[in-house]
């Protein structure tokens, strides 16, 4: 279905691009088409970072400026071939973007908006001050576009060239969107914590999209300058920047097609208003539509069209029911390395304070390989803090945590996941902007390798790896027993089923150690029973399990080893029978008087 959709969208789009100059061959309309094509390269770039990863970097126009000036200066003053100038501009832009990307993309939300805007406005201010850009007047007399001396003199030729670049941008965008990096970006958009927990390198992918988007904006800038035949500091000004963002939102921020549509919206609206003789209304209508789209239909025009298409297709078959029936043969042993001698996880005198509160105070325990270990204790015992210390969510104040003999307390959550430590969340952190199957595929991230270059070109290896990832994710879903939910969104599922998706996602990491934070919370009795069975089966695969659990009853039938915490300290640990008989444990759970009675 999804493949058909992409295919049909591609065909319709190509058809439209080809039909336009045939239907409207006059030079005015070709000019309009050229502008739209040139801008489309930019708006696709906007989708990559803003749309997929929800990073509010809105300084796209700054990169068009660099590309535009590179083209203008190189062609006019140095007589460089326009195509070479364009490539040189794009390379320069990408290098500069790379230089500022990592620090700037650490910022988020509104702070990121302001920082990217500041970069743009600084460039505008500088371009009108320095001499080599021609100051406020800029550069005039830019030649027509040419490739290696071959003049693209006719308007039709330039139209084809502009849309060729736009379509290349769309192709790159689509290839990224449906790859492991596309999933990683959506994961980042939904929850950086959960993205880190499956080993997604958040900064890396943000930087890559920033740089690729910069390259697209730069090419777009070069093309527009060839069309305008001049460049000055205000060609790609603040209004232009806002137009790119609002246009892309209206076109549909969440898909690459939305970016291309966004360019058509920007230019189409401008032309329409010119025809209606009310050109000044552009900003009001663009802004108004943006607000309206965000409130009513955040997926924009592209999402709207996609939904219409789905509705036509959905009439064919009835919706499948979600059923739970685990197939424990779906996964085979997870122990691929030689087992380490000694404990898999060692916590040595771990401490963490919040102000004066010692949430975890010099706690030590060990988790033996192949075991199911439970960390229990009453509310406020420090279990969750301990859990977060192990996952790298919180830094330690003192002590050490070792995994397979290696200290991990200084590692960020993402590196801990890369070592083969999977986790589930008490309050569920699923990626609701993806299907259930894609959620589980995200879990495979640490085991997949294809890089950004292979993905943009969609080399054969990418396809192969995607297929393997899909199969592995399906196997994990079969193992937890969730059938018929592959194409659904997590939020469409019942709570208990969502929990299974999360477990499947964690299993997709092929974890050596699985950390589960109160996995039974929110489940009913029969679901809890099924969960216990599932956990036993996971342990049977060779995965070591560490449970944090509040409810003692679940733990008792399941765990080999129990660690009891109270008031931030370890009270005791040992085999279940021993811990259960310990009067201090009974006291902590039932209150001192009852403990005295029991004794």
């Amino acid at each position: 279905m999804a493949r058909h959709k992409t295919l049909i969208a591609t065909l319709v789009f190509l058809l439209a691009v080809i039909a336009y100059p045939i239907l409207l061959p006059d030079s005015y309309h070709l000019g309009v088409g050229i502008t739209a094509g040139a801008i489309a390269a930019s708006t696709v770039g906007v989708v990559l970072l803003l749309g997929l990863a929800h990073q509010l970097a809105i300084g796209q126009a700054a990169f068009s400026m660099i590309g535009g000036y590179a083209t203008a200066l190189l062609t006019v003053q140095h007589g460089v071939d326009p195509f070479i100038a364009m490539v040189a501009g794009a390379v320069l832009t990408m290098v500069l973007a790379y230089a500022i990307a990592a620090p700037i993309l650490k910022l988020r939300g509104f702070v990121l908006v302001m920082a990217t805007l500041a970069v743009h406005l600084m460039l505008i201010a500088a371009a009108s001050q320095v001499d080599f850009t021609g100051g406020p007047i800029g550069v005039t007399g830019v030649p027509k576009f040419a490739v290696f001396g071959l003049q693209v003199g006719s308007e039709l030729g330039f139209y084809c060239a502009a849309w060729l670049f736009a379509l290349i941008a769309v192709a790159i965008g689509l290839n990224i969107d449906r790859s492991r990096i596309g999933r990683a970006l959506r994961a980042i958009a939904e929850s950086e914590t959960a993205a880190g927990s499956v080993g997604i390198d958040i900064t890396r992918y943000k930087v890559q999209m920033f740089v690729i988007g910069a390259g697209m904006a730069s090419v777009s800038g070069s093309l527009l300058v060839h069309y305008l035949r001049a460049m000055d500091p205000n060609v790609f000004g603040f209004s232009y920047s806002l137009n790119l963002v609002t246009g892309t939102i209206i076109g549909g921020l969440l898909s690459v097609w939305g970016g291309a549509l966004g360019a058509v919206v920007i230019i189409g609206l401008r032309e329409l208003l010119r025809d209606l003789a009310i050109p000044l209304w552009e900003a009001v209508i663009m802004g108004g539509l943006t607000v309206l789209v965000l409130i009513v239909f955040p997926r924009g025009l592209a999402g709207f069209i996609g939904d219409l298409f789905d509705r036509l297709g959905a009439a064919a078959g009835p919706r499948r029911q979600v059923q739970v029936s685990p197939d424990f043969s779906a996964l085979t042993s997870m122990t691929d390395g030689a087992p380490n001698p000694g404990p898999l996880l060692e916590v040595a005198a771990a401490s963490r304070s919040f102000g004066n509160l010692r949430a975890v105070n010099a706690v030590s325990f060990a988790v033996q390989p192949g075991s199911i270990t439970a960390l229990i204790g009453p509310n406020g015992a420090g279990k969750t803090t301990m859990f977060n210390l192990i996952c790298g969510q919180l830094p330690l104040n003192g002590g050490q945590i070792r995994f397979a003999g290696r200290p991990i307390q200084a590692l960020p959550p993402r590196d801990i996941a890369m070592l083969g430590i999977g986790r589930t969340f008490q309050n569920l952190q699923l990626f609701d902007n993806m299907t259930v199957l894609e959620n589980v595929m995200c879990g495979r991230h640490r085991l997949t390798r294809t890089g950004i270059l292979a993905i943009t070109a969609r080399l054969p290896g990418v396809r192969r790896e995607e297929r393997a990832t899909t199969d592995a994710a399906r196997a994990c879903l079969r193992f937890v027993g969730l059938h018929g939910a592959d194409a659904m969104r997590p939020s469409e599922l019942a709570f208990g089923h969502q929990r299974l998706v999360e477990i499947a996602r964690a299993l997709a990491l092929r974890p050596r150690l699985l950390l589960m934070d109160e996995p039974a919370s929110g489940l009913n009795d029969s679901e809890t029973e099924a969960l216990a069975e599932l956990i036993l089966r996971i342990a049977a695969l060779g995965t070591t399990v560490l449970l944090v659990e509040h409810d003692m009853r679940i733990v008792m039938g399941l765990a080999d080893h129990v660690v009891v915490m109270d008031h931030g300290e370890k009270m005791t640990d040992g085999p279940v029978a021993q811990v259960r008989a310990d009067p201090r444990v009974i006291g902590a759970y039932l209150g001192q008087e009852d403990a005295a009675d029991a004794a």
Partner: protein
Amino acid sequence: MDLSLFLQLLLPGLTTGCVYALVALGYVLCANVSGVVNFAQGEFVMFGGVLASWLFLGGVPFWLAILLATLAGAALGALQEVVTLAPVRHRPQFIQITTTVGVAVVIRGITLIAFGKDPLSLPGFSGEGIFFVLDAVLPVQSLWVWGATAALLLATFFFLRRTETGRAVRACSINLQAARLMGVNAERLRIVVFAVSGATGALAGVIITPIVLSSWDAGIAYGLKGFLGAILGGFRSASAAVFGGLGIGLLEAFGAGYISSGWKDFIVYGVLLAYLLARGGVFLRGRIAQTGAGH
């Protein structure tokens, strides 16, 4: 150092700084009660200045024009909250912020259509006179700017400290959730605060217009520089935001005077960028992350 040059930079710097301070105040107030940093904040200033000038040029009595522009700013703020932010309240931060970007674009567009492209001006509140501080020459309007800003700030702080509603705003800024549980009507409060920040923004635009003119595209500069002021002040306390705003005004003036007036914007935005890169991480943690003001 040349004292008269110093004063000639310092005092006008304080004047524009007053506007940035009022914008910064608006940012912080709105962020505290709604968790949203309002991208349209600078547009209120632009709108107020342009509207008052247009009304006055159209024959509306001077003080009535100012009053109407201020009220229009209040209405615009309240309208933004009710029409555009309330519907996306429970959506991701990302959507809320982009919505305010859309609103900013609409305000720019409406101003352009309704009042035209040309910069507009107002006469000084008490004529076009000038006065001297040592050798520094200043328009008399500067006194109005300083006085009005001081009065507005006093009124705002009185509101925050002495009135029931103001205390509720402060409660929200400390802990939105807890304030709600204590029975603070957050919905109504947001409308009030957006109206107040719209009004102070518009009034800031009005008082500065006799000195710098106002046109439809001026909002972004006010917005960015006010934001810088707010963030220098830690984006938390209203008074720190005010000092941050004044500081930006001075930075801009001294940058223009001692370095180059052409590089003024470059310097201010450079400082903004450098500060965000150096300290931006701070705004992602702790309390600010909770209220969402840094997001």
